[in-house]
Protein backbone atom coordinates (compact mmCIF):
# COMPACT_ATOMS: atom_id res chain seq x y z
CA UNK A 1 0.00 0.00 0.00
CA UNK A 2 3.04 2.30 -0.05
CA UNK A 3 2.21 3.30 -3.61
CA UNK A 4 -1.33 4.36 -2.75
CA UNK A 5 -2.01 8.07 -2.94
CA UNK A 6 -4.37 9.23 -0.22
CA UNK A 7 -4.56 12.66 -1.81
CA UNK A 8 -6.36 11.53 -4.95
CA UNK A 9 -9.69 9.94 -5.78
CA UNK A 10 -9.77 6.25 -6.66
CA UNK A 11 -11.99 3.71 -8.39
CA UNK A 12 -13.71 0.91 -6.51
CA UNK A 13 -11.16 -1.59 -7.83
CA UNK A 14 -8.30 0.50 -6.48
CA UNK A 15 -10.01 0.92 -3.10
CA UNK A 16 -10.83 -2.79 -2.79
CA UNK A 17 -7.26 -3.68 -3.73
CA UNK A 18 -5.92 -1.23 -1.16
CA UNK A 19 -8.19 -2.77 1.48
CA UNK A 20 -6.63 -6.18 0.79
CA UNK A 21 -3.19 -4.68 1.24
CA UNK A 22 -4.21 -3.05 4.51
CA UNK A 23 -5.44 -6.41 5.81
CA UNK A 24 -2.30 -8.18 4.61
CA UNK A 25 -0.04 -5.63 6.28
CA UNK A 26 -1.96 -5.59 9.58
CA UNK A 27 -3.18 -9.16 10.06
CA UNK A 28 -3.40 -8.91 13.84
CA UNK A 29 -5.59 -5.82 13.74
CA UNK A 30 -7.55 -5.66 10.49
CA UNK A 31 -9.72 -8.19 8.74
CA UNK A 32 -12.19 -7.96 5.89
CA UNK A 33 -15.76 -9.19 6.16
CA UNK A 34 -18.25 -9.49 3.32
CA UNK A 35 -21.69 -8.59 4.68
CA UNK A 36 -23.60 -9.07 1.44
CA UNK A 37 -23.67 -8.04 -2.17
CA UNK A 38 -25.06 -5.08 -4.04
CA UNK A 39 -27.89 -5.12 -6.56
CA UNK A 40 -25.33 -5.62 -9.35
CA UNK A 41 -23.60 -8.36 -7.33
CA UNK A 42 -20.60 -6.41 -6.15
CA UNK A 43 -19.33 -7.51 -2.72
CA UNK A 44 -20.14 -5.30 0.26
CA UNK A 45 -16.95 -5.26 2.30
CA UNK A 46 -16.46 -4.11 5.87
CA UNK A 47 -13.07 -3.67 7.51
CA UNK A 48 -13.00 -4.95 11.06
CA UNK A 49 -10.47 -3.41 13.44
CA UNK A 50 -10.18 -5.59 16.50
CA UNK A 51 -7.53 -6.44 19.05
CA UNK A 52 -9.37 -9.55 20.19
CA UNK A 53 -12.13 -10.54 22.57
CA UNK A 54 -15.55 -11.92 21.82
CA UNK A 55 -18.41 -9.69 20.69
CA UNK A 56 -16.90 -6.55 22.11
CA UNK A 57 -18.86 -3.30 21.99
CA UNK A 58 -18.52 -1.89 18.50
CA UNK A 59 -18.48 1.34 16.55
CA UNK A 60 -19.85 1.26 13.00
CA UNK A 61 -18.64 3.83 10.46
CA UNK A 62 -19.79 4.05 6.86
CA UNK A 63 -18.85 6.31 3.98
CA UNK A 64 -20.12 6.62 0.44
CA UNK A 65 -23.77 5.65 0.81
CA UNK A 66 -24.42 8.51 -1.64
CA UNK A 67 -22.04 7.52 -4.38
CA UNK A 68 -21.26 10.96 -5.81
CA UNK A 69 -20.01 12.25 -2.45
CA UNK A 70 -16.45 11.24 -3.36
CA UNK A 71 -14.83 13.09 -0.48
CA UNK A 72 -16.48 10.58 1.87
CA UNK A 73 -14.99 7.41 0.34
CA UNK A 74 -11.61 9.18 0.14
CA UNK A 75 -11.91 10.21 3.80
CA UNK A 76 -12.88 6.63 4.61
CA UNK A 77 -9.70 5.27 3.05
CA UNK A 78 -7.53 7.81 4.86
CA UNK A 79 -9.30 7.16 8.17
CA UNK A 80 -9.04 3.38 7.94
CA UNK A 81 -5.34 3.75 7.25
CA UNK A 82 -5.04 6.15 10.20
CA UNK A 83 -6.64 3.62 12.54
CA UNK A 84 -4.23 0.92 11.39
CA UNK A 85 -1.11 3.07 11.60
CA UNK A 86 -1.91 4.86 14.86
CA UNK A 87 -2.81 1.78 16.88
CA UNK A 88 0.00 1.26 19.33
CA UNK A 89 1.28 4.81 18.81
CA UNK A 90 -1.64 7.04 19.74
CA UNK A 91 -2.53 6.29 23.35
CA UNK A 92 -6.16 7.30 23.08
CA UNK A 93 -6.87 5.32 19.92
CA UNK A 94 -5.04 2.35 21.39
CA UNK A 95 -7.22 2.53 24.48
CA UNK A 96 -10.31 2.65 22.26
CA UNK A 97 -9.28 -0.43 20.29
CA UNK A 98 -8.36 -2.28 23.46
CA UNK A 99 -12.01 -2.19 24.47
CA UNK A 100 -14.05 -1.57 21.34
CA UNK A 101 -14.10 -3.01 17.81
CA UNK A 102 -14.50 -0.71 14.81
CA UNK A 103 -16.37 -1.80 11.70
CA UNK A 104 -15.77 0.38 8.65
CA UNK A 105 -17.67 0.18 5.37
CA UNK A 106 -15.86 2.47 2.93
CA UNK A 107 -17.83 1.89 -0.26
CA UNK A 108 -21.37 1.53 1.04
CA UNK A 109 -23.01 1.95 -2.38
CA UNK A 110 -20.60 0.18 -4.75
CA UNK A 111 -22.90 0.08 -7.80
CA UNK A 112 -23.51 3.80 -7.59
CA UNK A 113 -19.81 4.46 -7.00
CA UNK A 114 -18.76 2.39 -10.03
CA UNK A 115 -21.41 4.25 -12.05
CA UNK A 116 -19.97 7.62 -10.99
CA UNK A 117 -16.63 6.52 -12.42
CA UNK A 118 -17.92 4.93 -15.63
CA UNK A 119 -21.02 6.77 -16.71
CA UNK A 120 -22.45 9.56 -14.59
CA UNK A 121 -20.27 11.38 -12.06
CA UNK A 122 -23.38 12.87 -10.45
CA UNK A 123 -25.12 9.59 -9.56
CA UNK A 124 -26.40 9.48 -5.97
CA UNK A 125 -28.67 6.45 -5.59
CA UNK A 126 -28.32 2.69 -5.89
CA UNK A 127 -28.72 1.14 -9.35
CA UNK A 128 -31.70 -1.14 -8.77
CA UNK A 129 -34.56 -1.28 -11.27
CA UNK A 130 -37.90 0.25 -10.26
CA UNK A 131 -40.96 -1.59 -11.50
CA UNK A 132 -43.06 0.55 -13.82
CA UNK A 133 -40.47 3.31 -14.16
CA UNK A 134 -37.66 4.04 -16.58
CA UNK A 135 -35.75 5.73 -13.74
CA UNK A 136 -33.35 3.55 -11.78
CA UNK A 137 -32.10 3.57 -8.24
CA UNK A 138 -33.30 4.22 -4.71
CA UNK A 139 -31.90 6.76 -2.28
CA UNK A 140 -30.30 4.41 0.27
CA UNK A 141 -30.53 7.14 2.89
CA UNK A 142 -34.32 7.20 2.65
CA UNK A 143 -34.74 3.43 2.63
CA UNK A 144 -34.46 2.66 6.36
CA UNK A 145 -37.32 1.60 8.59
CA UNK A 146 -37.56 4.86 10.57
CA UNK A 147 -40.38 7.09 9.42
CA UNK A 148 -40.12 5.31 6.07
CA UNK A 149 -42.08 6.90 3.23
CA UNK A 150 -42.86 10.18 4.98
CA UNK A 151 -42.83 13.58 3.29
CA UNK A 152 -39.09 14.02 3.88
CA UNK A 153 -38.55 11.60 1.01
CA UNK A 154 -40.06 11.06 -2.42
CA UNK A 155 -42.35 8.40 -3.87
CA UNK A 156 -41.21 9.32 -7.39
CA UNK A 157 -38.50 6.94 -8.69
CA UNK A 158 -37.13 9.73 -10.87
CA UNK A 159 -36.36 11.97 -7.89
CA UNK A 160 -33.04 11.77 -6.04
CA UNK A 161 -34.71 11.15 -2.66
CA UNK A 162 -36.86 8.23 -3.83
CA UNK A 163 -37.46 6.05 -0.78
CA UNK A 164 -37.89 2.76 -2.61
CA UNK A 165 -40.79 0.32 -2.64
CA UNK A 166 -40.50 -0.79 1.00
CA UNK A 167 -38.10 -0.40 3.96
CA UNK A 168 -34.74 -2.12 3.42
CA UNK A 169 -35.63 -2.96 -0.18
CA UNK A 170 -32.04 -2.17 -1.15
CA UNK A 171 -29.56 -4.96 -0.47
CA UNK A 172 -26.96 -2.32 0.39
CA UNK A 173 -29.21 -1.23 3.29
CA UNK A 174 -30.55 -4.65 4.27
CA UNK A 175 -27.02 -6.04 4.55
CA UNK A 176 -26.11 -3.40 7.14
CA UNK A 177 -29.37 -3.92 9.01
CA UNK A 178 -28.79 -7.66 9.22
CA UNK A 179 -25.16 -7.26 10.23
CA UNK A 180 -25.78 -4.65 12.92
CA UNK A 181 -28.76 -6.47 14.42
CA UNK A 182 -27.01 -9.84 14.43
CA UNK A 183 -23.93 -8.29 16.03
CA UNK A 184 -26.10 -6.99 18.81
CA UNK A 185 -23.47 -4.90 20.56
CA UNK A 186 -23.00 -1.87 18.29
CA UNK A 187 -22.86 1.21 20.51
CA UNK A 188 -22.22 3.93 17.94
CA UNK A 189 -23.11 4.33 14.29
CA UNK A 190 -21.52 7.12 12.29
CA UNK A 191 -22.67 7.64 8.72
CA UNK A 192 -20.52 10.04 6.71
CA UNK A 193 -21.92 12.22 3.93
CA UNK A 194 -21.02 15.46 2.17
CA UNK A 195 -21.43 18.41 1.78
CA UNK A 196 -22.34 21.48 3.92
CA UNK A 197 -20.24 20.93 7.06
CA UNK A 198 -22.64 19.64 9.65
CA UNK A 199 -22.75 17.08 12.42
CA UNK A 200 -26.27 15.77 12.86
CA UNK A 201 -28.08 13.36 15.15
CA UNK A 202 -31.65 12.01 15.52
CA UNK A 203 -34.28 12.74 14.66
CA UNK A 204 -34.84 13.53 11.01
CA UNK A 205 -38.35 12.13 10.74
CA UNK A 206 -39.95 13.84 13.73
CA UNK A 207 -39.60 17.07 15.64
CA UNK A 208 -39.68 15.46 19.07
CA UNK A 209 -36.21 15.57 20.63
CA UNK A 210 -34.46 12.25 21.05
CA UNK A 211 -34.40 11.02 24.67
CA UNK A 212 -30.60 11.50 24.65
CA UNK A 213 -30.76 14.85 22.88
CA UNK A 214 -28.77 16.76 25.48
CA UNK A 215 -25.89 14.28 25.59
CA UNK A 216 -25.79 13.99 21.80
CA UNK A 217 -25.84 17.75 21.43
CA UNK A 218 -23.06 18.26 23.99
CA UNK A 219 -20.89 15.65 22.32
CA UNK A 220 -21.55 17.16 18.89
CA UNK A 221 -20.46 20.56 20.20
CA UNK A 222 -17.21 19.06 21.50
CA UNK A 223 -16.61 17.17 18.26
CA UNK A 224 -17.07 20.16 15.95
CA UNK A 225 -14.90 22.29 18.23
CA UNK A 226 -12.12 19.70 17.94
CA UNK A 227 -12.59 19.57 14.17
CA UNK A 228 -12.31 23.34 13.85
CA UNK A 229 -9.02 23.44 15.74
CA UNK A 230 -7.01 22.13 12.79
CA UNK A 231 -8.00 24.32 9.85
CA UNK A 232 -10.72 26.55 11.29
CA UNK A 233 -13.46 24.71 9.39
CA UNK A 234 -16.84 25.73 10.77
CA UNK A 235 -19.50 23.09 11.33
CA UNK A 236 -23.06 23.49 12.49
CA UNK A 237 -24.66 20.75 14.56
CA UNK A 238 -27.96 19.58 15.98
CA UNK A 239 -30.80 17.23 15.22
CA UNK A 240 -31.35 16.64 11.51
CA UNK A 241 -34.86 18.07 11.43
CA UNK A 242 -33.88 21.24 13.29
CA UNK A 243 -30.60 21.81 11.49
CA UNK A 244 -31.33 21.05 7.86
CA UNK A 245 -34.61 19.46 7.02
CA UNK A 246 -37.16 16.81 7.61
CA UNK A 247 -35.69 13.58 6.25
CA UNK A 248 -37.59 10.31 6.54
CA UNK A 249 -36.13 6.82 6.50
CA UNK A 250 -32.54 7.83 7.22
CA UNK A 251 -29.72 5.66 8.56
CA UNK A 252 -29.09 7.24 11.93
CA UNK A 253 -32.76 7.45 12.88
CA UNK A 254 -32.98 3.71 12.26
CA UNK A 255 -29.88 3.02 14.33
CA UNK A 256 -31.06 5.23 17.18
CA UNK A 257 -34.50 3.62 17.16
CA UNK A 258 -32.74 0.25 17.36
CA UNK A 259 -30.89 1.11 20.54
CA UNK A 260 -27.66 2.65 19.22
CA UNK A 261 -27.45 5.80 21.31
CA UNK A 262 -24.46 7.42 19.62
CA UNK A 263 -25.89 7.80 16.13
CA UNK A 264 -24.40 10.62 14.08
CA UNK A 265 -24.25 11.80 10.50
CA UNK A 266 -21.45 13.98 9.18
CA UNK A 267 -21.75 16.30 6.21
CA UNK A 268 -18.13 16.96 5.23
CA UNK A 269 -16.65 19.86 3.22
CA UNK A 270 -17.43 22.20 1.53
CA UNK A 271 -20.25 24.76 1.84
CA UNK A 272 -21.01 25.10 -1.85
CA UNK A 273 -18.04 26.37 -3.81
CA UNK A 274 -17.42 22.91 -5.23
CA UNK A 275 -20.13 20.72 -3.75
CA UNK A 276 -19.59 17.12 -4.85
CA UNK A 277 -16.64 18.17 -7.03
CA UNK A 278 -14.33 18.94 -4.15
CA UNK A 279 -10.74 19.16 -5.47
CA UNK A 280 -8.50 16.26 -4.51
CA UNK A 281 -6.16 18.70 -2.79
CA UNK A 282 -8.79 18.98 -0.04
CA UNK A 283 -9.00 15.25 0.70
CA UNK A 284 -6.28 15.12 3.32
CA UNK A 285 -7.22 18.35 5.13
CA UNK A 286 -10.83 17.15 5.22
CA UNK A 287 -9.88 13.71 6.50
CA UNK A 288 -7.47 15.13 9.09
CA UNK A 289 -10.04 17.48 10.59
CA UNK A 290 -12.78 14.83 10.49
CA UNK A 291 -10.49 12.48 12.38
CA UNK A 292 -10.41 14.87 15.34
CA UNK A 293 -14.20 14.86 15.55
CA UNK A 294 -14.39 11.10 15.11
CA UNK A 295 -11.90 10.64 17.93
CA UNK A 296 -14.03 12.77 20.26
CA UNK A 297 -17.04 10.59 19.53
CA UNK A 298 -15.11 7.33 19.81
CA UNK A 299 -13.49 8.41 23.08
CA UNK A 300 -16.93 9.24 24.46
CA UNK A 301 -18.21 5.82 23.43
CA UNK A 302 -15.23 4.19 25.14
CA UNK A 303 -15.67 6.18 28.34
CA UNK A 304 -19.46 5.98 28.58
CA UNK A 305 -20.49 2.33 28.26
CA UNK A 306 -24.20 1.58 28.37
Amino acid sequence: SNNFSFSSYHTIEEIYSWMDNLVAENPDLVSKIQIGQSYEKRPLYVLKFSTGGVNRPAIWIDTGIHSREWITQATGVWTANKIATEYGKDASLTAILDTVDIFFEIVTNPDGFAYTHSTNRMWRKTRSINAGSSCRGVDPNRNWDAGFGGPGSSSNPCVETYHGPYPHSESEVKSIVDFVLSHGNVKALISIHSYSQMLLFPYGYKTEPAPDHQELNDLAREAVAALAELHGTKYTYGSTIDTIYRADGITVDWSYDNGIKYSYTFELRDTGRYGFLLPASQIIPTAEETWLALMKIMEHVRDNPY
Partner: protein
Amino acid sequence: QKLFVGDQVLRIRASNEEQIALLRELEELEDLQIDYWLRPIQPGLPVDVRVPFHSLQAVKVLLESNTIPYTITIDDVQELLDEEKEAMMVSRKFERS
Protein backbone atom coordinates in the same frame (compact mmCIF):
# COMPACT_ATOMS: atom_id res chain seq x y z
CA GLN B 1 -19.83 8.80 -20.27
CA LYS B 2 -22.41 11.46 -19.55
CA LEU B 3 -21.14 14.93 -20.36
CA PHE B 4 -22.00 18.01 -18.35
CA VAL B 5 -20.77 20.62 -20.81
CA GLY B 6 -22.33 23.99 -20.05
CA ASP B 7 -24.21 22.71 -16.99
CA GLN B 8 -24.16 25.20 -14.15
CA VAL B 9 -24.65 24.97 -10.42
CA LEU B 10 -26.77 27.78 -9.05
CA ARG B 11 -27.03 28.86 -5.44
CA ILE B 12 -30.56 30.05 -4.82
CA ARG B 13 -31.80 32.03 -1.83
CA ALA B 14 -35.54 31.66 -1.46
CA SER B 15 -37.10 34.23 0.84
CA ASN B 16 -40.52 32.75 1.54
CA GLU B 17 -42.51 29.50 1.56
CA GLU B 18 -44.08 30.23 -1.83
CA GLN B 19 -40.69 30.35 -3.45
CA ILE B 20 -39.67 27.15 -1.69
CA ALA B 21 -42.79 25.42 -2.98
CA LEU B 22 -42.03 26.63 -6.50
CA LEU B 23 -38.50 25.25 -6.30
CA ARG B 24 -39.81 21.91 -5.10
CA GLU B 25 -42.20 21.71 -8.03
CA LEU B 26 -39.30 22.22 -10.43
CA GLU B 27 -37.80 18.89 -9.46
CA GLU B 28 -40.92 17.07 -10.60
CA LEU B 29 -40.65 18.61 -14.09
CA GLU B 30 -38.63 15.80 -15.58
CA ASP B 31 -37.95 17.64 -18.86
CA LEU B 32 -35.76 20.12 -17.01
CA GLN B 33 -33.62 17.34 -15.51
CA ILE B 34 -32.45 19.55 -12.68
CA ASP B 35 -30.52 17.95 -9.82
CA TYR B 36 -30.72 19.44 -6.35
CA TRP B 37 -27.41 19.26 -4.50
CA LEU B 38 -28.88 21.07 -1.51
CA ARG B 39 -32.64 20.74 -1.43
CA PRO B 40 -35.19 23.56 -1.07
CA ILE B 41 -36.28 23.24 2.52
CA GLN B 42 -37.03 26.54 4.17
CA PRO B 43 -36.52 30.22 3.50
CA GLY B 44 -33.05 31.42 4.40
CA LEU B 45 -31.26 28.13 3.80
CA PRO B 46 -29.22 27.95 0.59
CA VAL B 47 -30.39 25.80 -2.27
CA ASP B 48 -27.83 24.40 -4.73
CA VAL B 49 -29.03 23.01 -8.01
CA ARG B 50 -27.23 21.63 -11.04
CA VAL B 51 -29.02 22.80 -14.15
CA PRO B 52 -28.30 21.13 -17.49
CA PHE B 53 -27.29 23.52 -20.25
CA HIS B 54 -30.52 22.93 -22.17
CA SER B 55 -32.61 23.99 -19.15
CA LEU B 56 -30.57 27.00 -18.07
CA GLN B 57 -32.65 29.59 -19.84
CA ALA B 58 -35.95 28.19 -18.61
CA VAL B 59 -34.78 27.92 -15.01
CA LYS B 60 -33.19 31.37 -14.92
CA VAL B 61 -36.27 32.99 -16.45
CA LEU B 62 -38.43 31.28 -13.87
CA LEU B 63 -36.21 32.42 -11.00
CA GLU B 64 -35.96 35.99 -12.24
CA SER B 65 -39.65 36.30 -13.03
CA ASN B 66 -40.43 35.22 -9.47
CA THR B 67 -37.72 37.51 -8.04
CA ILE B 68 -35.85 34.59 -6.52
CA PRO B 69 -32.19 35.62 -6.16
CA TYR B 70 -29.45 33.29 -7.32
CA THR B 71 -25.74 33.26 -8.07
CA ILE B 72 -23.70 30.95 -10.27
CA THR B 73 -21.33 28.89 -8.13
CA ILE B 74 -20.06 26.52 -10.83
CA ASP B 75 -19.96 28.01 -14.29
CA ASP B 76 -19.29 24.82 -16.24
CA VAL B 77 -19.51 21.50 -14.44
CA GLN B 78 -17.65 19.67 -17.21
CA GLU B 79 -14.58 21.86 -16.73
CA LEU B 80 -14.32 20.75 -13.11
CA LEU B 81 -14.91 17.13 -14.08
CA ASP B 82 -12.13 17.33 -16.67
CA GLU B 83 -9.79 18.69 -14.02
CA GLU B 84 -10.80 15.90 -11.66
CA LYS B 85 -10.22 13.25 -14.31
CA GLU B 86 -6.85 14.72 -15.23
CA ALA B 87 -5.79 14.69 -11.57
CA MET B 88 -6.73 11.01 -11.30
CA MET B 89 -4.79 10.14 -14.46
CA VAL B 90 -1.71 11.92 -13.14
CA SER B 91 -2.01 10.09 -9.87
CA ARG B 92 -2.22 6.68 -11.61
CA LYS B 93 0.82 7.39 -13.79
CA PHE B 94 2.76 8.23 -10.65
CA GLU B 95 1.73 4.97 -9.01
CA ARG B 96 2.91 2.87 -11.97
CA SER B 97 6.33 4.48 -12.07
